[in-house]
């Protein structure tokens, strides 16, 4: 694909070169660099097919930009340079049924895929079953609407292919677990009777519940994620840190700060609702069992706007 004259000027001026539409072109120099950096030719892909795969991946994600935003040449270059081009070429070649690509895929990813499945399920048998099931799907044995469906087509190279495979395995395992969990009988639980002497007045409890809901809803995404991962999922600080890419000490500090801010916000909300500061502090000492606050429900009902918009569209 030959470079266009407007491409150079767009780079210099920062003027958007397109809107992610099919008229988007790939810079020839960048295309050469990416072409030589992967084994696309080895997997039977032509230069044009390779460029088209990159453009499809970019336009499908709008080059990492929000919807209705046009990416500049520079942003496109940045997006393309951030792609795992070799993995993307291999995945597309496998999805097309290239034998050499499949041989390479099996040689490189089969055993790690099985080990990842075993680690996710915690059982070798379940892990192998899970890995074999995914492998069958990847090979395109499933057919929908008369066409073979290969999950590898959904891979766009934003992360590594191995990470995508692990996440896919985890998704399938969690979905399967959640489906089967609903069929399990619920253990009977006898809640202890509340102590009548320590009961807080109902009005104060109501104000407290309202203040908590307001405080939690006012937390940002990272604070809610920390609270959910730590208190609901009972993940360790180390596990949370690995997910966020930060040290566990950082997670601890952020978590402590989040809980402190929520406590202050609850006091403010109580005072705002007509309680004195001393009464608000006494209300903070109420027995949590007296509260009818479902933190899990509260957190998970706080749907992020982006995905709400995406769901609406």
């Amino acid at each position, binding site marked *: 694909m030959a470079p266009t004259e407007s491409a150079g000027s767009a780079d210099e001026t920062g003027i958007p070169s397109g809107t992610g539409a099919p008229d988007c072109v790939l810079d020839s120099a960048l295309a050469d660099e990416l072409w030589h950096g992967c084994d696309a030719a080895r997997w039977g892909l032509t230069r044009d097919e390779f460029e088209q795969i990159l453009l499809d991946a970019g336009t499908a994600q709008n080059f*990492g*930009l*929000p919807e209705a935003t046009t990416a500049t040449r520079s942003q496109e270059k940045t997006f393309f340079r*951030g792609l795992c081009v070799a993995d993307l070429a291999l995945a597309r070649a496998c999805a097309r049924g290239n034998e050499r690509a499949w041989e390479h895929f099996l040689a490189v990813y089969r055993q*790690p895929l099985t*080990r*990842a*499945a075993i*680690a*996710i399920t915690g059982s070798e048998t379940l892990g192998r079953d899970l890995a074999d099931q995914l492998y069958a799907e990847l090979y395109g044995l499933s057919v929908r609407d008369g066409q073979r469906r290969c999950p590898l087509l*959904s*891979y*766009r190279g*934003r*992360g*590594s292919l*191995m*990470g*995508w495979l*692990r*996440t*896919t*395995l*985890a*998704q399938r*395992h*969690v*979905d399967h677990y*959640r489906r089967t969990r609903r069929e399990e009988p619920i253990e009977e639980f006898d809640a202890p009777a509340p102590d009548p002497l320590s009961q807080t007045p109902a009005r104060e409890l109501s104000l407290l519940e309202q203040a908590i809901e307001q405080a939690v809803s006012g937390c940002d*995404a*990272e*604070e*809610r*994620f*920390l*609270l*959910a*991962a730590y208190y*609901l*999922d009972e*993940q360790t600080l180390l*596990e949370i840190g*690995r*997910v*966020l*890419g930060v040290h566990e000490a950082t997670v601890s500090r952020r978590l402590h700060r989040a809980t402190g801010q929520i406590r202050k916000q609850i006091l403010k909300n109580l005072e705002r609702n007509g309680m004195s500061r001393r009464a608000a502090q006494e209300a903070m000492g109420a027995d949590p069992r007296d509260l009818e606050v479902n933190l*899990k429900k509260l*957190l*998970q*009902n*706080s*749907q*992020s*706007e*982006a*995905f*709400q918009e*995406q*769901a609406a569209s």
Partner: protein
Amino acid sequence: MTATSQHGFHPDAESLSAFSEQALNERERMEVLAHLAVCGRCRQVVALAREAADAGEVTAAARLRKTNAPDSWWKQWRLVWVPTAVVAAFAAASISVYIERSDRHGPDIKIAEQNPAPSATPPSAPTPTEQAKVEPPAAAAPATPPTHTAKHAHSAAPEQLPAPAPPVVAAQMPSESEVPEPRGPAPGVAHRQEAMREPPPMSRADEQQSPPQLAMGNHSSSYSQPGSSAPEAQQEQAEEHRHAEVETSRMRSFKAKSATSGVHGANAAPPGGATEAVTVAAPPQLETQPAALPEPAPMLGLKHVRNVPTPAEPMQLPSGLASVSIASRGHFMLAIDKAGALFLSEDRGVTWERITTQWTGRAVAVHRHVAANDAMQTAPAAQNGTTGDSSAGSGAASPPPVLFELSNDKNQTWVSTDGRTWTPE
């Protein structure tokens, strides 16, 4: 994004994977994080994927270690070889330095021990070969190893003859060295060390400058038993040997002269005329000998009386029997064999003459005896400058100072001045 849960749309696997790998930009990251905050399912997916990734990394690291095991093994041993080689080199250097020092200091210590010891064999000492020639056959019978002495007896000087004769000491060393020596070094070691090292020039100079007496004393202290008077006896014995050598040489020249004058022929006369022959022949021999010796005459007689060179082993006499008693004076010797026969020799046992029996019973012992007045009479003569020649002229008038005594098995005694004529005492 795909909608697969009750919360509507979930981030797809790629977004979650990219989120875990920090591959999303900030906007995408916050979107995913906001969803993860409210979606337990996606949090669980991310957590499981992260756990699987950690397990895979651990497995890959273990496999990598296993793959690199041979290299690691070799690298470890290669690293171990370096300090090992350094330690080995240091040890080798230390050992070599120690050996070199011991070789360097060993002779010094040895020399320090024997510093006067070089004089164990002073330059004036004759070699054992010469010693064997000088000493009589009976005295030379004990084998004298030539090793220790022969090496140092390389600068014998005639003018140093009066010095004590260390060869005697050296000749006696083997027999004495058989006695265990608790303090001194082992003889074998001493000989080996001495044979190995080359004496430095300084030690050789010291050897020549050191007084012989001191050398003898130190040498005897290191080789003889403590508390014994062996050095003095050895010194005197060596002096006796030296005198014997001088006398032998003079006796030979005297025989040559007397052969022409016919005096010696009288000596060879039958026993019947022995008295005249002795009175003629013996005095010149006795008178001339003190004049040639540097030592004073009075001491000569006493010394000869005390130091009868009695052979350590029996002498073989012309009768075929071994001697049981020997008495001598210079080259003049009397010997009794086991059968009681008396033999006389005027050349220190080279030729023997049997003396007719003039006593009763069986002779068992012969001794030398000097009268006290004999020495007193001889001393003034020597002090007045009386030479052997002058006394030789009046040899018949002055009685011989030495008497020989012969004892039989009945403890009876006969005396004689020439060894040929015996009279009851």
